[in-house]
Every structure is written in structure tokens, then in C-alpha cells.
């Protein structure tokens, strides 16, 4: 066995910088996914049938094809179709946001359906309009229910963000590959990167649990 972590020591600052790229990328994708996912959810629960059809069709497309394919189409075909030279980061955020919004809208729909219909009736009987009811009565309660699932989605996004290394975004995995090409060893940079991913995911999971507990306390 030929393992020597001291070989990657000079490259550690370079690899650690990838944390910010990965986190930034995940955060941007998540925000995009949440906003567009909320819109899709509202379409799915609306009474207007074409909107429901569109949202359901959208979801089936983005869940029914590989994320890597979606990423390639957006990154490689945008210049051909729109004569616009899209940056790797932008293509990545777009692909991941569009993709995760499909999953997020399903999570949200389930969360909203789980709210007792009495809540809706109570708000309606008080004479508040639909958007006020959704915004202040239904969504806050649904959000609390789906928080664990959303954190899961965020962790998935974070791990899958490694896919954008193939189009050249210098996030964690891409940096590990760059180091490999400099010093001709693969194991140490990959393991080091793996540890970074694991630590970030654990921190997120713990934060989520704390947040969940705090939200529960506020109602006791």
C-alpha cells in the first residue's frame, strides 16, 4: 500500500476553497428550486386544469430523465439554440434549480395536503382571501411539516452538485481531480474530498434537527 496524505498538503487550501463554491452552488440552486417549486405547487393545487397538467408534466419530465442529461442540454445546447455563451455555474444552477423544483413541488404538495381541511375552512369562514390564507395559515404549517424532507433535498443537492465538475465548475470534486492531475495520485485527494462532503452533510443534518426542535417548542 502506498498511502501518504502529506503529498496533498500543499493543495489543501486550494481544495478547501471548493467548499465555498459547492455551498454557493447548492444554495443558489436551492433558492431557485424553492421559488420555482412553490410556483409549481400552487399550479398543482389550483383549480385551473391546464396549470395542473403543465405542472404534472413538468415534474414527470424532470424526474423521468437523468440530471446529468439535463445539465448537458442546458450547458451545451444553450449556445446553439440561443447564441448565448452560458457560464458553467449558471448552467449548473439552472439545471439543478429546474430539477430540484420538480422534487420540491412534490414535497410541498404532500405537505399542503396533509394540513387538515378545517384550517382552510376556518380561514375561509373568517372572510380572508385565498392568498392570505395560503400565505399565513396553510404554508407556514405545511413548511414545518416538510422541513425534514426539504433538508434531505438540500443534502441531495449538495452531493449531486459534484456532477457539475464535469462541465468545469471548480467545486470540491473538480478540485480533487485537478490535484490528481498535478501529482498523479488519486486516493488521497478523493478521500480528503469525501471527508469534506461528509462533514458538511453532518453539520446540515444537525442544524436541521435543532431547527426542527425549536419550531416544536414554540408551540408547546
Amino acid at each position, binding site marked *: 500500500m502506498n498511502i501518504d496524505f502529506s503529498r496533498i498538503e500543499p493543495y489543501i487550501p486550494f481544495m478547501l476553497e471548493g467548499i465555498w463554491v459547492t455551498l454557493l452552488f447548492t444554495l443558489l440552486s436551492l433558492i431557485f428550486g424553492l421559488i420555482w417549486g412553490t410556483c409549481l405547487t400552487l399550479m398543482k393545487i389550483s383549480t385551473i386544469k391546464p396549470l395542473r397538467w403543465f405542472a404534472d408534466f413538468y415534474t414527470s419530465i424532470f424526474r423521468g430523465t437523468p440530471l446529468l442529461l439535463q445539465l448537458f442540454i442546458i450547458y451545451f445546447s444553450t449556445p446553439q439554440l440561443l447564441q448565448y455563451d452560458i457560464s458553467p455555474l449558471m448552467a449548473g444552477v439552472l439545471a439543478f434549480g429546474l430539477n430540484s423544483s420538480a422534487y420540491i413541488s412534490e414535497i410541498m404538495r404532500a405537505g399542503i395536503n396533509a394540513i387538515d381541511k378545517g384550517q382552510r375552512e376556518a380561514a375561509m369562514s*373568517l372572510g380572508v382571501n385565498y392568498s392570505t390564507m395560503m400565505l399565513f395559515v396553510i404554508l407556514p404549517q405545511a413548511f414545518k411539516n416538510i422541513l425534514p424532507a426539504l433538508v434531505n433535498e438540500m443534502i441531495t443537492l449538495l452531493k449531486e452538485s459534484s456532477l457539475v465538475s464535469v462541465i468545469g465548475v471548480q467545486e470540491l470534486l473538480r478540485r480533487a481531480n485537478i490535484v490528481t492531475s498535478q501529482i498523479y495520485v488519486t486516493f488521497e485527494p478523493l478521500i480528503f474530498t469525501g471527508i469534506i462532503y461528509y462533514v458538511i452533510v453532518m453539520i446540515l443534518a444537525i442544524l436541521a434537527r435543532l431547527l426542527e426542535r425549536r419550531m416544536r417548542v414554540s408551540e*408547546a
Partner: protein
Amino acid sequence: MKPNKAIEIKNLTKKFKHLTVLDGIDASIDQGEVIAIIGPSGSGKSTLLRCINLLEMPTSGEIWFKENEITSPKVNLTTVRQKMGMVFQHFHLFPHMTVLANLTFAPIKAKKLSKEDAEEKGLALLKRVGLEDKAKVYPGSLSGGQKQRVAIARALAMEPEIMLFDEPTSALDPEMVKEVLDVIKDLAKTGMTLAIVTHEMNFAREVADRIWFIDKGKIVEDTDPAEFFKQPKTERAKQFLDKIL
């Protein structure tokens, strides 16, 4: 002179798929009147109540709220409902808001009251139902009876012209029924128009000005309580009373 009508129902029917739940209801409620709606379960009494504030859309027929036909498609349901309070069997308080926030939510959002005014009114209402010390707690920590009193106060916060009660005490432990009924009784004394679906026969006899006995989607008796409980006119009402009294 005829008293002013608060609610007038004309040939109302409600069907769910092929099931006829309400079958040609004609009735009216005068202003300030207290109506107790009673009948066997599944007779359509809750559906009738829910049709009055259009939580259920009637299949056919008309409902008039004072001089407006509220079943007309032109009517803005949101504004109509602001004038009708509704209290549910299972309270349906908003669990993520404090008791006081439950009371101020609709006045602030729908009536555009300032937070200060809404809270002042809210606290006065909580005092009226005997729960001013619970303003800052969340509904989860209240007993069933307290929850229902908060729900009544929440409906009153919109200053409705009529209050609808859908089996307000059916989900309560027996020892909590009285505190809720007392609040409703006080409300009746203030001259508020009330329609109450209930199984509390003593309460109906004591508080109601009129009884609607409903069976199989029809109002089979519409009469004053003393007469109804002493000598019901129909066989069905007799059987019903025999079973529960």
C-alpha cells in the same frame, strides 16, 4: 310589521354526486333570532349550516343574506363570509399562532384594522369568554372547552351579523360542555342572530326561539321549542326524541 329577515333560504338543494343531502329547504331566520337545528346524524343539518356561509355550494336554490342573494355568482364570497361567524365542531384554531394572534388575524388581514386596535378588541373578547390570561399561549396547551371559547371569540372578532355553530360541543369532554354553552347563551342574550346545530336538547329547549327538525334533507318541523319537545307533530320527530331523551 314583519321583523327583518337575516337569512332566507328558498328551495335549497344540495347533492353530492347522486346523494341528495338537502332536498328543497325553505326557511328563514329573523334578525336576533336563535335557531337550533336538530335531527338524526346524516340528516343534512351540518350541510345546511355550511351552505348558509357557502362553505358548501348549493346545487340549486337561493340563499338571501338580508337583502342580498349570496348564491348569485356575482357575489364576492370573501366579503359575505366576513359578516358571518362560524364555529366548528373541531375548533380549527390556527396552531402556529398564539391565542391572541388567532383573534387578530382576520381583522388585521381582511378588515385592515391596525395591530393595536385588533389586539385591544381581541383582549376584550378574550375577557368576555373568560380567557384573558391565555392571550400569549398557543392553542395546543388549551383544553377542548377553552379552545372552543377561543374559536367563538375568533369568530366574534370580525363583528359578524350572524353566528353559525356546527355542533360546538360534540367534540368536548362532558365537563367542558357547560362553559361553552354558557358563552353561547350570553351571546343569545345580546340579541345576536344565531343558528346552532346541536345535540344538546336541554340547551336547545332553553335558548332557542325556534327549532328546525331536519330529517332526510328536509325540514320536517319548524316550530317553537316548547311545542316541539312537548308534542312533536311528526312521527319521525317523536321517534327521534324517544331515542335521545
